């Protein structure tokens, strides 16, 4: 039976099941019917809110469509893509996004690993440490971003005061560093917890045996722990990379994209809500989607990351 009937769940699936699978027992048919009925609402919502708008965004990206000039809406083919891809703003935003993603994910991975080891090895107040480290994960990004913004405001913030009243948010590179710090602070706990789950799968006996055989701590880490944790690390990296590529909240609060610190998401937002240009805004959105798809494919095919969740259906 084709998987596409799942979309038209409910009655259609029922009929199809009746028509084509007469050999199925009553119980198996009831099971299949229930399966479709249970999935139908979730599928319908996801299709309506995500699948349809994506198709619509593709359509919008082929139009000249500015909300301020409604009478000039016109099908223009791929010319919006040409306009965006030949615009320095797009490449600037892409560069900023890639810089932020690479640095924040790389540093988060190292710090997350350290955090995971602290959480794994700690003997004292493990609950307290874990609870505390969950706060950055849970805190509203915007709330934390205001904290960082004020902390780096000269004459007002403790961090600015600690660095000779510097004003890093007014300078391209320093602002990027502040944005990356804010990202790292917010996302390290999540990384740490994912890695902790992977770390707890490493058999303690194996580490002890290696110690007896004379392996030092670094050798045990690189030769035993890391290889065994590879699947967990790759999944955590995939999650974090895709998440970081979408960065919006921190930049919106910290710099509003000034001094060329806007990410691709900020660029798309500006084109939509400041320039009211639905055509260009949609084009940027589709390009971001393509970038994210490339990252995901690279991870899954290139590094052999098991797509999270693939084990569900297989078992």
């Amino acid at each position, binding site marked *: *039976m084709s*998987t596409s*009937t*799942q979309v038209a769940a409910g009655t259609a699936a029922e009929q199809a099941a009746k028509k084509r699978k007469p050999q199925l027992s009553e119980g198996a048919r*009831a*099971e299949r019917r*229930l*399966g479709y009925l249970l*999935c139908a609402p979730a599928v319908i*919502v*996801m299709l*309506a*809110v*995500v699948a349809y*708008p994506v198709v*619509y*965004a593709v359509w*919008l990206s082929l139009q000249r469509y500015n909300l301020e000039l409604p009478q000039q809406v016109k099908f223009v083919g791929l010319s919006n893509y040409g306009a965006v891809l030949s615009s320095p703003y797009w490449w600037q935003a892409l560069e900023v996004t890639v810089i932020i993603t690479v640095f924040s994910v790389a540093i988060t991975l190292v710090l997350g690993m350290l955090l995971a080891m602290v959480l*794994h090895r*700690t*003997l*004292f107040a493990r609950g*307290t*440490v874990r*609870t505390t*480290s969950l*706060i950055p994960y*849970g*805190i*509203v990004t915007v*709330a*934390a971003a*205001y*904290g960082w913004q*004020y*902390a780096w405001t000269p004459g*007002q913030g*403790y961090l*600015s*005061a600690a660095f000779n009243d510097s004003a890093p948010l007014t300078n391209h590179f320093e602002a990027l560093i502040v944005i990356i710090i804010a990202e790292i*602070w917010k996302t390290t706990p*999540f990384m740490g*917890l994912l890695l902790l789950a*992977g770390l707890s799968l490493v058999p*303690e006996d194996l580490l002890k045996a290696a110690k007896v055989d004379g392996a030092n701590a670094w050798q045990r880490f690189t030769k035993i722990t890391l290889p065994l944790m590879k699947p*967990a690390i790759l999944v955590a990296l995939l999650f974090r990379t895709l998440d970081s590529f979408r960065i*919006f909240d921190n930049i*919106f609060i910290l710099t509003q994209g000034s001094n060329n610190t806007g990410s691709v998401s900020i660029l*798309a937002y500006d084109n*939509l809500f400041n320039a009211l240009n639905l055509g260009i*805004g949609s084009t940027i*959105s589709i390009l971001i*989607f393509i970038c*994210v798809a490339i990252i995901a494919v690279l991870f899954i095919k290139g590094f052999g990351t098991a797509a999270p*969740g*693939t*084990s*569900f*259906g*297989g078992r």
Partner: protein
Amino acid sequence: MAAVASTPRQKVGWTTANFVVIALALIPVLWLLSLSFKTPAAVIDPSFIPASWTWGNYSGILTSAQFIRPLINSIGIGLISTVISVVLASMAAYAIARLRFPGKSLLIGMALLIAMFPLIALVTPLFTIERALGLFNTWPGLIIPYIAFGLPLGIYTLSAFFREIPWELEKAAKVDGATPFQAFVRVIAPLAAPGMVTTAILVFLACWNDFLLAISFTSTIASRTAPAAMEYFSGSSQFTVPTGPIAAAAVVITIPIIVFVLFFQRRIVAGLTSGAVKG
């Protein structure tokens, strides 16, 4: 778990590491707390401890419709979205974990795709659609997309939890004459409750945290949520210096998170890591 750290020196090392972790996690939060208690005069002073303390920032925002209304919106929209997505997600997750039917992997693939989807790519088309349908700047205008983005998280987390449930009980119920639906409601749902609570917390935190959709699909305090409303404090004439009120608002919207984390620390960790390291 691991009882390797045995020598006193190692103990001291790990304990120091603990304090470093706690300090790094808390200092930015304490800074917000400190700002929220600073008087307008003390705000222009970079010291970490307020020179003069005031409750004024809190009484200011908690009596202003510019904050109270968005706070109510945040709570209402968050709760409604959470309840609906957890109910729909548990139905789907049950089917995924338990039932044999074609198209299962397609559903999982779709959920995964949506979970990783760049939100901004949906803002443009949804903005246009919501304006056409009259959903722009309404509660449903935010609730519907929140449900859609809560679903993948919910389906994902819940199917991991549901696979751990002892399913012999379901069979026993069926032997006793229960239909699959009755088996779901009477036997499995109570067993699944812990996983559902965990999922509900994660989905609620995601809705509570959202900023992009909240600023894109709202235009007044009729539906603007708290994170989106803070930005508008700046232009408001009733606050001379918005730093204090914004910090107070940031602290207020952080309180539910601290409460969740304190009470459900184990569940949140279990939920976050479920499925991610299996298979």
